């Protein structure tokens, strides 16, 4: 997980569901690179082609609504998205993001499509370099932060298993 993430904003509305992020017909692999070819395919067909590594998704309320498919987080990570900023997140998408070290950042900010954003995790702030304004985001719980710093849920499991051996 990077401490500072910088990329241009892709704006999305409220209630972006996981069927939009990755349609169910492609749920035949867990490979992020393979899944990323179809990310937002039905709704923003240009996304997979035009996304640049580091770009940031800015959603509205309830981002990641719907199915539990972890494939949604994997597809975004595979596409090179550095993080999602949203007013709120659907529960399972939020968990999957924490467990895979893909920071789900809760913030209600002013942003236009293509604005250059900089997210500083330690300081808890998002800078919109296009309008010059700073936006503090909701701090992560100590648990979520430690999980992501550790490298995600599987690293945690490895630690637990090595202690019990």
């Amino acid at each position, binding site marked *: 997980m990077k401490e500072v993430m910088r990329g241009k904003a892709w704006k999305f509305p409220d209630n972006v569901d996981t069927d939009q992020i990755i349609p169910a017909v492609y749920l035949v692999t867990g490979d992020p690179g393979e899944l990323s070819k179809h990310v937002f395919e039905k709704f923003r067909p240009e996304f997979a082609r035009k996304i640049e590594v580091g770009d940031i998704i800015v959603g509205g309320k309830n981002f990641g609504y719907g199915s539990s498919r972890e494939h949604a987080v994997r597809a975004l990570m595979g596409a090179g998205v550095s993080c999602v900023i949203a007013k709120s997140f659907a529960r399972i998408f939020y968990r999957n993001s924490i*467990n895979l070290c893909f920071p789900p950042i809760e913030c209600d900010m002013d942003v236009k499509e293509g604005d250059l954003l900089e997210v500083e995790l330690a300081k808890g702030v998002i800078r919109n370099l296009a309008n010059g304004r700073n936006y503090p985001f909701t701090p992560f719980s100590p648990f979520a932060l430690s999980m992501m710093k550790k490298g995600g849920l599987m690293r945690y499991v*490895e630690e637990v298993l090595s202690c019990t051996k």
Partner: protein
Amino acid sequence: MGRTIAEKILSDRSGMMAVPGDIVEAAVDYLMVNDVTGLPAFEEFEKLKVKPLIDKLVLIPDHYVPNKDIPSAKQALAMREFARKYGVKNYFEVGRGGICHQVMIEKGFVAPGRLIVGADSHTCTYGALGSFATGIGSTEAAAIMAMGKLWFRVPESQKFILEGEPKRYVCGKDIILNIIGDIGVDGSLYKSMEFYSAFKLPLPDRITISNMSVEAGAKASIFPPDEKVFDYLEDRVKYKPVFADPDADYSDTFHYALSDMVPTVAKPPLPSNTVPASECNIEIDQAYLGSCTNGRIEDLRMAAEILKGNKVHEDVRLIIVPASQRIYARAMREGLFEIFLESGAFISGPTCGACLGGHMGVLAPGEKCVSTTNRNFVGRMGDAKSEVYLASPATVAASAVKGRIVDPKEVKP
């Protein structure tokens, strides 16, 4: 301070006093994985080089089975091979199982007081029998296979009080659509819904309500268990029911008059976009009766009652998908298949297929489907320009006859 059902179950399984907002690590009773979420879970798990806790594990292929193509065949094979490699006894092959949530209930994995997770968002279904049950991701499933436990944020609980008795044709689907229409698709986000009703709702209606609670964002959706649950489980399984304390703390309390509700439809693109079925009047191309939401024997009987002596409209395909092999056999024995076939319906074996736009009923651009499933998102059942209207089995059957979405009373007053 008293505690809710969610707080009690999470306290019991974590050995800590679980207070809303806390993170606890809790031991799960069962972990369910399907063919779609299974593959990434198995891949993550294998990296750990340990043996899985197979007694807790239930593997149910249902999304893309029977296999729709070669990649889905490989995916289902990965589950079968995992089951063989580790001797997972709770693996339910095609022909011996069905849609995962229905199978979990039928086979006795679901019971009051249990903590159950599943790599499928509709795992919250099991709250209908008094379990704390919630959907998780594939990596989390891998973690549980290795450790038997997982982290949970203890949710706040909301109390839903259902008053009065539902009118004819108003069932669990109409009740949950009315609730989601009221509180919105994030009205229960991160929270546990707890339902209370003086009228003893039939178990299948409760199952439909708990099933769709995730469409309001809920983490769990629990009915305190009663005789209907105890009678259903008989002495097949051992369990310890958990009830809320009278002074438990709820973040919100909602009241709904069941007697005021009418057959309801959720128009696309969200389950909260509700209207009375009688005002919908949308011409349809397909009608779909099935899924973990409404593919139970009671749902099929209700549809048969409406279809008996009627024909499916000439411009409509009616697809009927019993939720499990057991329901399929029962419907056949009860003579429901004869009624369905006579009406011109298509009957398939259990699969999630069309509900998620996978196979066995995918929609073309511009097509409209009235469906007993749980999601009407843009493109959910097929092309981005197709539309899904969510409704009860009675409304779907009546609409299939009329060729447009109608209140069931229009076919059988």
